[in-house]
């Protein structure tokens, strides 16, 4: 039997810099950065458009199973290195591709970095 492809949606919790919490839903396959920006939150400037070159999409990630996250690439590692306020939970949200297994994760927007 053929598999019917549906546009799977993934929901996660976002905490913005002012401490407000909200739920965000985005289609599997796009990045968390895209989903957050599409929700109208502009605390994530995403200056480079998601090409992993600006670090203005820095977030802290919790309750996300590591095996379903793309590994941190050397370029992301370089950028996170520049970011002040880096923690073990740090990721660049443009590199976090939504998938069903990440449903329910919690994302906090990191403080803005000035390089």
């Amino acid at each position, binding site marked *: 039997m053929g598999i019917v*492809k549906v546009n799977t949606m993934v929901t996660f919790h976002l905490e913005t810099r002012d401490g407000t919490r909200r739920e965000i839903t985005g289609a599997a*396959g*796009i*990045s968390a950065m*895209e989903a957050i920006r599409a929700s109208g939150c*502009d605390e994530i400037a995403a*200056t*480079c*458009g*998601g*090409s*992993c*070159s*600006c*670090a*203005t999409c820095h977030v802290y990630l919790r309750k996300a199973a590591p095996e379903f996250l793309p590994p941190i*690439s*050397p*370029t992301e590692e*370089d*950028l996170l290195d*520049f970011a002040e306020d880096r923690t073990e939970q740090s990721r660049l949200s443009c590199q976090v591709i939504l998938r069903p297994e990440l449903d329910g994760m919690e994302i906090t927007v990191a403080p803005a970095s000035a*390089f």
Partner: protein
Amino acid sequence: MAHDFGNIDAMIADPRTYMDRATYHALFAHLRREEPVRWTAPEGIAPFWLVSRHADVHSVESRASVFLNAPRAVMRPVAVEEALAARQAGHKEIIRSMNNMDGEEHRQVRAITSRNFLLPSVRRMTDEIDAIAQEFVSRLIYKGPETDFVQDVAVWYPLRVIMALLGVPAGDEALMLKLTREIFEEKSRDEFGKQRDQAQLGFFSYFRDVLEDRRKNPRDDLATTIANGTVNGAPLPEFESLSYCLTVATAGHDTTAATIAGGLLALIENPDQMQKLRADVSLIDSAVEEMLRWVAPVKHFFRTAAEDTRIGETAIRAGDSVMLAFPSPGFDADMVEAPEEFRVDRAPNPHLALGSGPHACLGQHLARLEIRQFFLAFFDRIDEIALNGTPSYSPSSFISGLSSLPVKFTVK
């Protein structure tokens, strides 16, 4: 506002359409309104969906695993694609660089040089770029008080920056400029492709020697980084490493030069905006974004659908190709307030002149810094500036911008 554009397929394929700013923007306003995802089939060119709305271009770019960069990058006649495929084991583009790759391979190839182009790395180059900008403003003054801003200044400045980074000596810059023009310009439909072919060979023989040299004598430049680049632990093959050099060498200067020249023209044509920016140079960053939106020198790249999908309401079949018209989203009234107005303080400014998603312009932070430092240096020294003739544009459906901007000016 019914406007009969006649044969839209032919217009999209015709390099002259891109030389006429008013017609180009009227055409795309029509497309965004009436046919936002348009099946386009110019004679002699493989057909494609032409995507013009902001939401749609953005959505295609963010679904990078569905809309692939391989195998088709730019518009060219089927006859040229077939000739290339015959000589390059089926590959239909003149190069194979990160722009023709997807997924993990793209990530690794881009990562070979990406460290040099990260926003924090680029910020550290500010003083060097500023010094080069000042040198070229001083050249402008020397050439003045009447000069062709494009031919005398704009094309040379970003060329100096990218060639210095790449490691090409200043003495070879004129050759690089000539080859770049041959890659991007289309003199006529008949020659479409032929001169690009020659230029590709010219670039390749030049960079073959450079790469060879850097493997033996490493230096602190991008050529050395590319010469020693690896993918999955293996050295980058020759075609790919030559393509890399060609991409960095060509992508980095005509685009930036066009934006600086087009930005200056917009300021001259909008004296209130020139005045506003001069009075408050802290607006420089938003002014740079507005210049990028206004000029958007990269007219398209393609994507190819990997599976059946949709763009907005339109069903797309696996294998269909999609042309992303990068200037158009910046003029989409759904996203941009009063898009026909040039405003140096525009914010937000969600243009897509640099693309978005994993393939978004590698050199974007460098380009922004170059434009920024140029205008800061320019406002320091130049007083009044006015048009001194008719500007003209280069004929290309891929990368096109001002080829001549006659100006006269006074120095402070």
